[in-house]
Every structure is written in C-alpha cells, then in structure tokens.
C-alpha cells in the first residue's frame, strides 16, 4: 500500500511528530502576536454591544474566524436577518476554500479524523506557514503535525485574547457611552477597502452605499437588503461589460 510511503517504519532523521508540532507553533508566533489585538478588540466590542460574556467566548471557540466574528456581531447589533448574516460571513470566509484547495493536494493520504480538525482550524495565518512547510522540499512524513502545531497555538491564543477583551469590556460596559460601537464601522472599513481592487468592486460599493443612504428610513432594515442587492447587481453588470468590451477593443487596435 502506498500509505506505507508516508507511515513506513523508517523515519527520516531529524523529523518527529513532536518537533514538527512545536516548529509549527514557533513559526506562527509572529502571526499569533498580530492576532492578539483583534481578539481583545473583538471581546471588548462584543460585550459592550449585545453579547453576553459566554456568548462572546463561545463564538470564538466555535466559529474561530476573525473577520466573520466582527461582521457577525455588527450585523446582530443592527438587527439584520439571520439569513443575510450567514450569507455575508460565508462570502467573507470563501477565501478559506481556496486555501483548503491548495493545501488539500498534500493531505490526500490523511484520514478524516485529521482532516476535520485541521479544516476547522484553517486560518489565514496557519495557511501562510503550513503551505511554506508543504512546499519545502524535504521528506518529512509529519508535515501535518507542523500544521497542527500552528493551528493549536493560533486557536489557544484566540481564546485567550478574546477572554482578555471580554474582561476589559465588562469593566467599560458600565461607563457612559464611549462610542465603542463606532469601532464596528472602522473595522468594516478596514475589511472592505482591501476587497476593492477592481472597478466593478468599486461600483458595487458606490451603488450599495448610495442606495443605503436613500433607503435609510425604510423599516425592518429592508433598505439594507435593497442596497446590498443593488450593489451586487451593479458589480456583476460592470464585470460583464468589462469582459464584453475587452475583445472588441483589442480587435479595434489591430
């Protein structure tokens, strides 16, 4: 069986499960430091809006997705329909499908008891270090232990920094309005702007924002729905025109 190629009795010198595990954690360390402020901000903002301490901690434990968690608490605070919250967080997390597709080709030999937790623990940070490990041209049979090490340290750190934020946020909650809810707006700005890399995407944002202004008074947040749908339609239309235009222009040039 070709499984023996990976789990054969002979372990190449210098590679063990344990050393791979801790190297994964160590190589992720700078990225773990970078995640700490987001965990703290998330915890603090969540408990100062609508979320209980336990709800906030549970979200970090079970959802474990930074941007999606920020977006979810913002949308819940706005009273947005559950379906739209799920769709938006799904779309924001789609990049993980690309990560998974790129890592998956190295993990075909792993059983599902490995793939399920590794899949759940896949983040931007762990992808960044794990793909480098897999691309490195050595014969270690334990590269998935490296991935696991990176993921476990990321996960533990996310829980801890959320907890710090929750404790800090509970102290702030009783003070007069600090305007912490505005943190949501600047967070959304920081998430959206890097997405705007093309004209159709820019048009999507402009149309969505303009329609949201016009429909601001519409009850039950239906204005938001109308704005989002208009923005998506505008983006799709612009993309279609751009694709149709290009061959025509190239023909004219010749």
């Amino acid at each position: 069986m070709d499984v023996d190629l990976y789990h054969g009795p002979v372990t190449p010198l210098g590679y063990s499960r344990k050393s791979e595990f801790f190297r994964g954690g160590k190589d992720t360390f700078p990225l773990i430091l970078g995640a700490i402020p987001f965990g703290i901000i998330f915890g603090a903002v969540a408990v100062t809006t609508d979320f209980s301490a336990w709800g906030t901690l549970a979200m970090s434990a079970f959802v474990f997705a930074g941007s999606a968690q920020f977006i979810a608490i913002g949308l819940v605070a706005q009273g947005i329909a559950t379906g739209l919250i799920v769709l938006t967080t799904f779309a924001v997390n789609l990049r993980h499908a690309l990560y998974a597709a790129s890592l998956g080709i190295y993990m075909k030999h792993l059983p599902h008891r490995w793939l399920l937790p590794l899949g759940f623990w896949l983040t931007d940070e762990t992808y960044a270090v794990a793909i480098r490990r897999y691309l490195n041209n050595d014969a270690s049979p334990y590269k998935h232990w490296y991935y696991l090490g990176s993921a476990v340290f990321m996960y533990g750190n996310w829980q801890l920094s959320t907890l710090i934020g929750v404790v800090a946020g509970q102290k702030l909650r009783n003070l007069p309005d600090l305007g912490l809810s505005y943190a949501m707006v600047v967070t959304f700005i920081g998430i959206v702007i890097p997405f705007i890399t093309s004209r159709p995407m820019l048009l999507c944002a402009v149309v969505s924002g303009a329609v949201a202004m016009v429909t601001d008074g519409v009850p039950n947040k239906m204005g938001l729905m109308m704005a989002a749908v208009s923005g998506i339609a505008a983006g799709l239309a612009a993309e279609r025109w751009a694709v149709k235009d290009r061959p025509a222009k190239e023909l004219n040039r010749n």
Partner: protein
Amino acid sequence: MMAVTVIVRYPVLALVGRFDIPAPVYRALKFVPVAVLTAISVPEILAPEGELALSYSNAHLVAGTIAIATAWRTRNLLATIVLGMAVFFVWRYLFAA
C-alpha cells in the same frame, strides 16, 4: 456560524478536485461582503443621527474618512481601527454637544 466555518474549510480539504463552487455563484458571492458592509457603514458615517450631516463637526464622518484613507494606503486592519478610533474620540471630545 460554526457550520459556516466548517462548511467552507473542511469539505474542500477533504474533496479536492471533486467539489467546485459554480462560477456564476462564486462571481456573485464575491460582491456580498463589500455590498453588505458598505450598506451598513455609509449611513453610520454620513447620517449618524438619521439626518445627513456633511459637516467637519461630524466625528463619524471625519474618522470614517481617515479610516478609509488609512485602509487604502496601508491595507492594515489594525492601523485602520486604531487611527480611526483615535480620530473619532478626539473629534467627539472637541465637538461634544
């Protein structure tokens, strides 16, 4: 929401080459975060009290503009949050009603 995390990450890892999001669906989904988050943020910035407030004393507008510029220049989420909130607090303090 946990389902969303697992659905996006796990099946693709397990089913590489046997699973694809249809191209038209993917094209539309790509626009969802920008459309939804912009629709929420723009009224919060331009009309925080429900009325259009295009004034330098509107802290939401000034801080939002700074945050957009920061995000555009640096692509750095933390810098955007920290600078945006700093401007917001200073402006609110200066122009407190």
